[in-house]
Each structure stands twice: as structure tokens, then as C-alpha cells.
């Protein structure tokens, strides 16, 4: 049994994304043809949500993410308010996909997508080394032969 946790860099990556999203929403509010007081309320709500995500939700969410590779299946647990546990038997896994955005490349992080027939499970950004290790473990000869 091998367990992977998300690195601290992932938290910073998501904080930057949240900040960019908040800035974008505030910018949209400025361009909307609405009265100033409503715009101010909207901006305050966005700032409040951003602060909540930055200081409380994102650190908790990143801490809650656990990826456990067992001999026959992979288990992904995550969630702060709503806790989700996904159990995916290796025999049903079709392919794995790693995604790197320009921002995650700066932090040397990789997002992993596990694709089974008609559904996919997304693993938030792991460090590149961990992502590679996870994929090689899933695609290892032993697991492949067992599932043939």
C-alpha cells in the first residue's frame, strides 16, 4: 500500500488560480451596467468568498486529498464539506492522462486523470515525480498481467 499526499506547492497553485478568478469576476463586475452600490455588494461577496477559499477551504481541501494505491485498486479520498471516496479497480482502468498547464509547469506539478469506460476520476496536481511514480505503479507489469 502506497499513499500519496498533495504537496504544499499545489496549495499555492490553487490559491493563485482562486486569486485570478476573483480578479476576473471583479473586473466583470466593473464592466456590468449596474448601479455602484450593487456592484460594491457583488465585489464584497466575491472578496469574502475568495478569502474563505484562500484561508480556509483550499488548505483543508489539499490536506484532505489522499491517493492510496493498493495491489488491485486505487482509492482517492477528498472533500471538506462533502467527503468523497472513489474506489477504482485496476481491471477497469483504461488509460491514465497527465495534464500540465503553464502555471502548474512553473511549480513542476502534474494533474492526473484516470479514465475508465465512460467516466473519469481527477487527481489534483501532484509533484511531477509523484505523478510519474503513481502512473508507473498503475501501469506496472505486475498489475497489467494480473488484469489481462
Amino acid at each position: 500500500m502506497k499513499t500519496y499526499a498533495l504537496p504544499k506547492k499545489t496549495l499555492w497553485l490553487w490559491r493563485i488560480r482562486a486569486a485570478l478568478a476573483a480578479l476576473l469576476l471583479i473586473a466583470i463586475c466593473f464592466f456590468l451596467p449596474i448601479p455602484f452600490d450593487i456592484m460594491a455588494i457583488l465585489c464584497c461577496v466575491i472578496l469574502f468568498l475568495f478569502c474563505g477559499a484562500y484561508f480556509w477551504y483550499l488548505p483543508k481541501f489539499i490536506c484532505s486529498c489522499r491517493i492510496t494505491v493498493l495491489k488491485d485498486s486505487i482509492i482517492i479520498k477528498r472533500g471538506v464539506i462533502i467527503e468523497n471516496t472513489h474506489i477504482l479497480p485496476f481491471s477497469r482502468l483504461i488509460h491514465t492522462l497527465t495534464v500540465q498547464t503553464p502555471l502548474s509547469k512553473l511549480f513542476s506539478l502534474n494533474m492526473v486523470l484516470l479514465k475508465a469506460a465512460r467516466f473519469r476520476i481527477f487527481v489534483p496536481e501532484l509533484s511531477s515525480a509523484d505523478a510519474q511514480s503513481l502512473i508507473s505503479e498503475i501501469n506496472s507489469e505486475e498489475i497489467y498481467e494480473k488484469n489481462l
Partner: protein
Amino acid sequence: MKRIYKAHPLMIFSFIKPFLFVLIIPLITAVLRYLTDRRLTNILALEILCFSSVLLIGTARFLAFRLILEDDILRIKSGVIFVRTSDIRISRISSLQTERNPFDLIFCSVTCRINTEAGSLKKSDFKFKLNHRDSDELSELLFSDKTVSRARFSAIRVAIMAAATSSAATGMIVGVPVINRIGKLLGIGLERMLLDEITNVSSKFQNYFPPIVNTVTLIVLLAYAISFLYSFLKHINFKLSFGEDRLTVRSGFFVRVKTAFMRSQVNNVKIEQTLIMRLIRRYSMKVSVGGFDDAKSVSQVVVPSAKRKAILEEFAEYFPFLETKGRSLHPDRRTAIKNRFLLWPAVYFLLTLAASVYFCLRFPDFNRLIQFLTIVLLTVVLCYAFACLYEYKYGSLKLNENAFMQSNRFFGTRALYCPLKNIGQVKITRFPLDRTQGINRVRITVCSENADSIRVRFLNHRQTSEEIAKAFGIEEYFKCE
């Protein structure tokens, strides 16, 4: 033994079918105009040229098509410029579906669909036209198995299924484009005429509610009738024959469809009940076969309608290898849990009432219409509460070498049987209140093109974890937790 099959000449028309509205109908119209008015349009020559080339390409593609059956490999060759050859191991074929419409009956042809686990959803992997005799021979060679038993389902059972599974929405989806096209072809405003007639008829009914209610009710009833008729004609003449491993389903009136598949290729079996079926205590059995059908659903009806005892007997007869034994998990039998099931129906009920009172006070002129809408919404909420109560009483999860799950689905119910190895994903969700009550919600998705899934709510978390750990051999994970 090597067998080679050629396509039926009607396949040429299948190739040129995509150009029907943009090329063929304008060309026919232009030719007719020339014959009647002696008037030539400027683009007729171009149209004739395009039509000839499309026909030529279609003929070449028809001539190039070959189906070769050699040992345990089926080879499908198609294409003229881009030649495609597909080699499929016979054991990998999920199902063979043959369809005969009235044209096929006249020309002794059959539309064949070969499906595998691969390919895209809602689209058969290989579709072609064969001679009727060739298709029978191919079916025999692919799924050679002696027929052990045959069953024929009466028209009444098919009608019950059609009545219970039809909906006004389906009727509109099927009926509106047909009416629209007929109107366009005849050059008359058919929709307008139909709507005027409906308004005229509905105005003759005098009741408490405003006339718009009558009109809408009549439209909904008409759409439902269309949907019923469509479903009834699709499933009438329902026959089932099965051999040692093969299962063949035949149905249809104008379009006769025959589907053959091996029982071992079945991903999962569903015993379903719609709201109407629940009221008359009937069930229907469907199977999900890999890559099956190019219609809206990838499942095949095996038993159109039967009582609970009869359907369970039929299930045990057709799919004995899917029966599950062992401990069954149910939602916790506590008042607090029962209240959780009824929480959302109660919230929706109160919201509907509150909204109704508000709108009645705000728009007093529309009181009668608002009252009608409130009655409709409250009925829907009550149906939802009825479904939630079913989930509380009969929701179940059983994991062994096979899996059995039972819960509600929208307003109906669903029981799903599948081999444990076919389970693609298990998702355990816990809301904050679930954590304090020690319960969870489990969603199991079957790994198939249809990805049938079922959710059982408010199971005991400790017991569920134990069962899942035992079934999937992941005890060490839950021990560490």
C-alpha cells in the same frame, strides 16, 4: 472454413442517404418541373453531375464492401480510396442486431449492426446491409447455439410496458419533427392547423380552470399517445429464445428487429419499474450489452412486464450466474434516517405552497391557473416522497462474487445485478450530517458503454466499509482509516 459475404445493393441508398435533402429531393423537384412546365433551372446540370458522382461513389463503396468470416475472426473490409479493414475476434462481439423495415421485406435485405465493447456511445460499431439469407447464416455462425426454450410475450404485456414507459416529452420529440417535415413537404402550415384544431376542441370543455389548461392537457395527452404508439409498435411481437449461452430477442411490427448476444457478454441486468408500473405492481427486465444499439439507450428489453414473483423467476432462469448471496445492507432503520429521506420532499412541498400563496396574492387575476400549477407541482412532490419512501424501505446493497443494488431512480425504481468484476467505480459520499449519524451514500457505476449506475443512500458507514473492503480485497486501507 472461410465465408465471404457481399453487401446488398440497397446499401448504395444508405450511402447516398445523407444527400437526400440537399441533393436528391431538389434534383427530383427540378426534373418534375422540367417534365410539367418544360422549364430548366440553371443548376440542373450541376445537380445531375453531383448526383451522378455521389451515386458512382456509393456504388463503388457497395462493391468494395466485404465481410469475411474465417475461423474465429470476422474481417470487415470497406472503402474505395481509404480502405479500412477491421479484424474482430468473434468472442469479442457483444451483439448482432438485424433490422427489417418494409423496404427490406420487399427487397429481401436486412440492416445488420455488429457491436463490440469498443466504439462510441449510441452508435453501432459496424452497420451494413446484407441479403436476408446471408444475415441468418452469419447470425448462426457467430452465435451458434441450439435453442433450448422460447417465450412469447402477449400484446397486453407489451402494451403495459409501452404505457408505463411512454412520456409526453418522448412523444413531442418523435412527433413534432415528423409533423414539421410533412407540413414542409406538402407546403401547408400543418402545425398551425393542428394547434387551431386542438384549441377549438379544448374550448368545448368547460371547467373551473382557464382554457389554456385544457389546451396544454390535450397537447400532453396527444404527445403521450404518440409515444405510446411508437413504443408499442417497436416492441409488439416480442419473442425471446435462448440456448445454452445465446439469447435472441425479436420484436417490432413495421420494423422488425432481431438481436442476438451471448449471456456471458451481458454487463448488467436491470429490473426496473416506472411510476405507473409501481402503481400497477409490474416490473420490466433489461440487459446492458457492450456497445449495443444506436438508439437512445444501450440496453435491451428482455421481459416487457411481469409481476415481481414472475420476473424474479425469469431472472433466475435466464441469468442464474448473476444471483447474489450474502449479507444485504439496508438504510439504517431509525426514525432520524426516515426523516432524512423525507426532508427534501417536505422542503419542496412547503416551498411550492409558499410560492403558490405569494403568486396568488401578487397576481389575483391568474388565481385559477396558479392553483392548477400548484396541484401539478404538489402531485410531483408527493410522487418524489413516494419514491424516497421506497428507497428507505427497499434500498439495498449486496456485494459478493456478484453485486446487487436496489434503489429508486427519479420516480421509479431500479434493481441492478452485475458480476463484481464489472464494477467500474465505487463512490462513497458523506455530508457533514452523515458523519455525525455514521451513515453514507454509495454510488456504484458499472464499467460499460452505458455506465449504468445506482445510488443507495444512508447506509451504515462501518458495515458498508467492511463489505466493500471484503469484496474488493482492500481491508488494509479501511484498517488504516
